[in-house]
């Protein structure tokens, strides 16, 4: 474990902070969406289709697309649900070097049969931030615990804790510290929040701590490695769909006999603009990959719930 280093990555990160104007300009020109583009950080509490683009402090521009789609019927078949459900998540993050410009790379790509807040089943991914040329998430189980939020409310804070098990093919071609094949398990604790500022404006936040332990053949020797990462994201959304996202529900007040109203969310997906997202990731421990600490600024679009 001790022979895996990250010095070159840290040097590149240090350069990134000196090119902010270039990065902002590049971000504005880059199409993109809604997934963090950070290793492990994920947002299973929102469902839909999204694109994001941005730039980060390691002098890369990012484009990310994500979709929750109906691909396969839910286990149990047509008889149970009478059709497929939107459990399958597809996502891809591409990055391009900005200094010098060029060298487009797929940083992360994932297909996962079921990616729900409480259960992940059969995922396959390529993730350079984890040094994985290819990885499989066999099963992940999580307990979501709402710390804040009410039925029908539009603001909430949900904590999730859990773990997954899977396999990772570590490859230096995918920015791993060393080549290898390992069994891996990631323990996760996250806080996921949304604060509705009005019927159309909302701030979302995600803070996540993960610890990945991996053991197997690394550099043709039996070894183990690990990654501890903390990621955070804060983003501002505005709903630009036609029609109000909420409606007024009248009722007769039992005491006064007068009509009062409460607000209720309307059906259907909404188109939202992510005006800005600021993300950051730091890794106090990482013996698997050459990934470095980064901060990212993004803009994007989302069509979802």
């Amino acid at each position, binding site marked *: 474990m001790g022979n895996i280093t990250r010095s070159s990555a840290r040097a590149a990160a240090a350069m990134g902070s000196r090119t902010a104007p270039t990065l902002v300009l590049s971000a504005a020109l880059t199409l993109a969406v809604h997934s963090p583009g950070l290793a492990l950080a994920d947002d299973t509490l929102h469902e839909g289709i999204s694109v994001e683009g941005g730039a980060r402090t390691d002098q890369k521009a990012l484009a990310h697309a994500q979709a929750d789609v109906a691909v396969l019927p839910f286990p149990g078949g047509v008889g149970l649900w009478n059709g497929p*459900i939107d459990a399958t998540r597809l996502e891809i993050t591409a990055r391009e070097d900005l200094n010098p410009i060029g060298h487009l790379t797929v940083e992360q790509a994932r297909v996962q049969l079921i990616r729900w807040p409480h259960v992940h089943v059969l995922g396959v991914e390529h993730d350079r931030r984890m040094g994985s040329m290819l990885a499989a998430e066999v099963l992940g189980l999580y307990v979501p615990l709402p710390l804040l939020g009410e039925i*029908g409310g539009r603001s909430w*804070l949900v904590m999730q804790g859990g773990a997954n098990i899977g396999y990772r093919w570590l490859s230096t071609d995918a920015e791993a510290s060393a080549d290898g094949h390992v069994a891996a398990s990631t323990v996760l604790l996250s806080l996921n*929040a949304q604060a509705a500022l009005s019927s159309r404006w909302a701030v979302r936040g995600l803070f996540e701590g993960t610890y990945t332990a991996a053991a197997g053949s690394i550099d043709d020797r039996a070894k183990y490695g690990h990654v501890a990462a903390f990621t955070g994201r*804060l983003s501002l959304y505005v709903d630009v769909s036609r029609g109000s996202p909420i409606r007024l529900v009248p009722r007769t007040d039992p005491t006064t006999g007068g009509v009062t109203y409460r*607000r209720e969310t309307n059906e259907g997906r909404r188109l939202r603009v992510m005006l800005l997202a600021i993300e950051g990731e730091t890794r106090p421990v990482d013996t698997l990959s050459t990934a470095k600490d980064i901060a990212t600024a993004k803009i994007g679009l989302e069509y979802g719930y």
Partner: protein
Amino acid sequence: MATDRTATLRGAALFSTIALALLATQSPARATSPPANAAPDSHPRPRSRNADAVVENFLPMNRTSALEMRVAQLHGYLAQIAATVPTNARINNMGNFCGAFTFYDAASLPRPTWLTLTEIPRDRSVETFARLALECQQDFVHENGDQGENGAFRAAWALDFLYFNRLADTTGHSVADVLAFRDSLNELYIATVLLRELGRSDAVRAGVYVEHAPDFLDAKGLSRADVLRRFAGFLSAFSPQEQPVLDDFIQLLDLRQDYLAPFGRATLNMMDSPDDLRVLSAFFAYENHLRLHPELLSEPHGGWHRLMKITGNDARQAVRVLGLLASVHLIVFRDLVPALAHRGLLTPAIARAFYEASLSYFMVNELDERAAKNGPNDHSLVYHFFFPDHYETSNWKWYHWYNNAYSGCELRRKGYPKAAIVGAIGSIGLLYEGMELNMAIPWRETMKLDPRVNPIVEGFDDVRINQDGAAYGAEICH
């Protein structure tokens, strides 16, 4: 590098600030447990208009003639509601709409239910369901001997489906009015089934042999409900004091092989108890009285005050009767009534009890909704009417509270400490809600509603109200 780290930390700090701000503004509408030292209902309270109300008796539904009259009344009511919808109104696959429909179908088939709803203009759905329910009764008598009552049940479920998902108002009626209409559909279903089964029971008692397939009363007791037991075993590693409570709770549920009906034996015991039946009938009459006198709904906790009057301030009896009737409405009714009839055991008294218990489940919900106060925020209501004075909740699922108050009481009587009971009920609730997320997410997707956050928030709110009920039950039965 230092700059990067600083940016990351600032982001995390900002997020934490927002999270803390959100925590600080948590709504007081959240369900709250009674204080541990509260002695429920021991304080003298001011006069209650609900407790003092002179309530007229409701005609007992224990004879076929009474049931026939009620069915005719309900037909007339539905015809009035449906007056603006053509008499030949149809939807695709009317046969399916009018065909057999059980709670199991209702729970597991969101897409067909939703498709039925989407076939009908939403703002005409109440009127159209009234028409369709009538059409089912008049034109679709089925090979399995039903009288088309399943259409009424299915329509009631579809409206419930809207209500569960906070869409009842999109029918163009107030939420409470939609529930009142739903209750009429359910009453039609219940009355029609009881009418048939009472006739069958009478025939059996008269010596007419009626063959029947193995049913609920033949089913083996599921003393080892495997999933629950395994979960209990797993939990015991973390909380040994909860293990025996979970074991006894599973026994209390009294599940049977191939059936989901809970509390079957306890429900039958209640129906053998003249005093419990008196409470049930008096409460049912009071609910009907409230419909005619909605001004009584303005009294905070007025329904509970009435319950205390009916039971002679016996909160244990109140949570037993309402806790058990809360489980009768769909599954127990469907499983137990035919089984009793096939054996000639569906007596007039039991038929009446099933009628009143099944309907009370819905009527408590309807009246609770009508009596609720506006919450402190822009989207929630505060339900109080049928809860004790110290308790109110923003969760409409009154039956969770009563079910678990009954369970908490029974478990406390076995000597378990309140903390272990509340913990065990929380654990079993967590398992149940976790499993139900697998259903709630596709349901919500089907309906084009947020499928992820809301089911999680609602699920945990349900766990909380379960624990609140269990805590109350444990307190009153120490």
